[in-house]
């Protein structure tokens, strides 16, 4: 194990993401497509690679064969060096306890204490597999060490009026956390937890084992572990994050996050060569923009063929936009095809969907974004 490798990341990737409907029918939420060529989980995994966090456990649960085999190819993120690795950690049968599902975020880690022991973890970095952001976890670890904290929680300043939707950290003037409130009706602070924690492993191990035995616990970091730390007077510090962060829990927010990328000044900046987002290496030729195509304000990736008009839209790998088709304010996921003269407005078109020639889907005045998950005939 290398020197800097004593922080092991554990990505919670078991979410169903049911508000993404058909997009999560066959894949877990962290595997949902995003940004033209990525999947959501590429972001925490690339962050790990770029932060020199070389051992990553991915805690999967629900319908995860695609997610499991996707993250298992750890060379996509350069996490295939000698002592590196992305390890898929689903619930499993054990000698003493038999078969069990993960009962909560903390329980998922508790059930993998043997993995953390085996990897000789010194620190544990708990991450969520379905948030989009760029963060240097090495810097967060530095902060954790410097403040002498028992645990460090990454926080984001949110508008105070929205703070009631988040887990809110109330801190003293040194950013020491004095209180944690889950979705408070009257928030006292605007520091929202991002669900990103660094713990000193040995101590966390004790808390987890205690929590496991507690029949009243929901085995959750926010609801159980953090309050226990606070109750014991442990030192919890807030690590303030500035920058783009998005939980794409709904079709509308997924659409918005994609649209954000078209803006050349967007904060996420996937063009930054010093913090690349790595993903699967697909075999696809470069995109082809045809003779009569008309492309503006668009994000388009390899394998696409555009013969029609694309405005303010994101095209994923291998999509085909036929002649005279119009794509407006939309997101077209991999391998989808839009037939001649069809018109797509304010939609997310799921992968492999075919929109027949002449078909019209979506509406420029619709309040919500339309998810097109099945083939559309004229």
């Amino acid at each position: 194990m290398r020197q800097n490798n004593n922080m092991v990341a554990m990505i919670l990737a078991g979410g169903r993401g049911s508000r993404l409907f058909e997009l999560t029918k066959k894949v877990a939420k962290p595997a949902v497509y995003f940004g033209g060529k990525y999947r959501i989980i590429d972001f925490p995994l690339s962050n790990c690679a770029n932060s020199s966090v070389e051992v990553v456990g991915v805690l999967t649960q629900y319908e995860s064969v695609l997610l499991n085999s996707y993250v298992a190819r750890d060379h996509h993120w350069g996490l295939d060096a000698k002592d590196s690795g992305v390890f898929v950690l689903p619930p499993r049968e054990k000698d003493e306890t038999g078969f069990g599902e993960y009962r909560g975020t903390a329980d998922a880690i508790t059930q993998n204490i043997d993995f953390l022991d085996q990897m000789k973890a010194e620190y544990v970095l708990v991450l969520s597999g379905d948030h989009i952001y760029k963060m240097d976890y090495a810097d967060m670890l530095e902060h954790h060490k410097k403040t002498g904290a028992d645990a460090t929680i990454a926080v984001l300043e949110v508008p105070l009026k929205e703070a009631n939707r988040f887990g809110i950290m109330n801190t003293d003037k040194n950013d020491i956390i004095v209180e944690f409130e889950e979705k408070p009706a009257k928030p006292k602070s605007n520091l929202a937890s991002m669900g990103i924690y660094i713990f000193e492993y040995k101590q966390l191990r004790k808390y987890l084992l205690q929590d496991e035995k507690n029949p009243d616990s929901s085995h959750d970091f926010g609801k159980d572990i953090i309050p226990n730390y606070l109750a014991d007077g442990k030192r919890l510090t807030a690590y303030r994050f500035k920058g783009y962060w998005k939980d794409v829990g709904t079709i509308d927010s997924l659409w918005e996050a994609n649209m954000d990328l078209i803006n050349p000044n967007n904060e996420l900046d996937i063009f930054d060569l010093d913090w690349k987002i790595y993903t699967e290496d697909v075999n696809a030729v470069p995109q082809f923009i045809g003779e009569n195509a008309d492309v503006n304000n668009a994000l388009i990736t390899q394998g696409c063929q555009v013969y029609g008009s694309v405005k303010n839209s994101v095209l994923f790998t291998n999509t085909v936009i036929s002649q005279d088709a119009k794509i407006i304010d939309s997101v077209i996921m991999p391998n989808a095809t839009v037939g001649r003269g069809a018109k797509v407005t304010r939609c997310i078109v799921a992968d492999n969907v075919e929109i027949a020639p002449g078909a019209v889907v979506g509406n420029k005045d619709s309040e919500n974004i339309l998810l097109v998950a099945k083939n559309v005939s004229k």
Partner: protein
Amino acid sequence: MVDALGIINFEDSTADIEGLGNYRPVPAISFLGRYRIIDFVLSNMTNSGMSQIQVHIKEKPRSLIEHLGTGLHYNINSKRGKLRLLYGESKVMSEVYNHDIGSFIQNMQYIEDSNKPYVIIAPSYMIYKIDYTEVLKEHIASQNDITVLYKNVDNAKTEFIGCDTLVMDKDKHITSIEKNRGKYKTRAVSMEAYVLSKRLFIELVNRAANTSALYWFKDILREVCGELKMVGYPVRGYVACINTLPSYFKANMELRCPDIASDLFVEDWPIHTMTNDSAPTRYSKDAQVCSSVVANGCVIEGKVENCVIGRNVTVKKGAVVKNCIILPGAFIGESAKLDSVIVDKSAIVHHVKKLVGTPEAPIYVKRADRI
């Protein structure tokens, strides 16, 4: 799975891709925005299940060391297989001695050590798609000494100049090999790709070395033509020979078109390359792009027409780029108007207002130049 050692040979001095060829060996030259020339021959080999492959190069190994790596991205099992970059290690007195026979002899130990009974030799500068499984199967069944890939063309008067052409009888037995001097329209152009037993290969290499210190492998083949049973094997589909700057320009331009490209890029025969992890390309509200191939990572704000644009290229608002090949990382500034220009990697075209070449004589802008 093909039971043959792959040898990617280097080009002789008749191949001269001026400008681009000064900075890297031909196999490392960027092609169609995303690829390097060597990706095509290498993907042919690995898609055919070959896992022991030697790449012989004449000079400047650096760019290929990085592009090839250990071959994982070409699907070579790093334990069982081996992608080996071989490079003449002794100093060559004069450029004329820097030939393939010299490289084969210097690295003969690696050829002999291979446990494969056959070798398949091919240069990188011929671009086409072939399944060597079929070729080797036929080679073995027919008990020929040497199988030579060729392509029937009807533009030999203007293309493939300097290439070998095969003269064959009706059973495709090769009776002689002649240089294409542009005299005839239709010719059977040799792909300079050969299938033969390892034993015969080693024998011919030694024979070439003993015949003349200046002989290339193709020279000895020309000589043994009558003596050995050499048979042609036709290549179907698109073929390009990248041996001059205009032919490089032409092949890029042809393969822009999905109709032609679909001949070379098919789903079950992927062309592997080293990924760059570039973001998708962003088109601004002012972008005007048509009839172009664009790689990932670009920011396009200007006008692009009939172009091949490499990875991470910027075309600023106001720029007009027509019939151009822009290599990865180049920057085209606001006032630039380019027509029939090849801009090499990381060049910055900023202070030049207008550059106009022709397809027959495209203008070349040097690597990392600032103009």
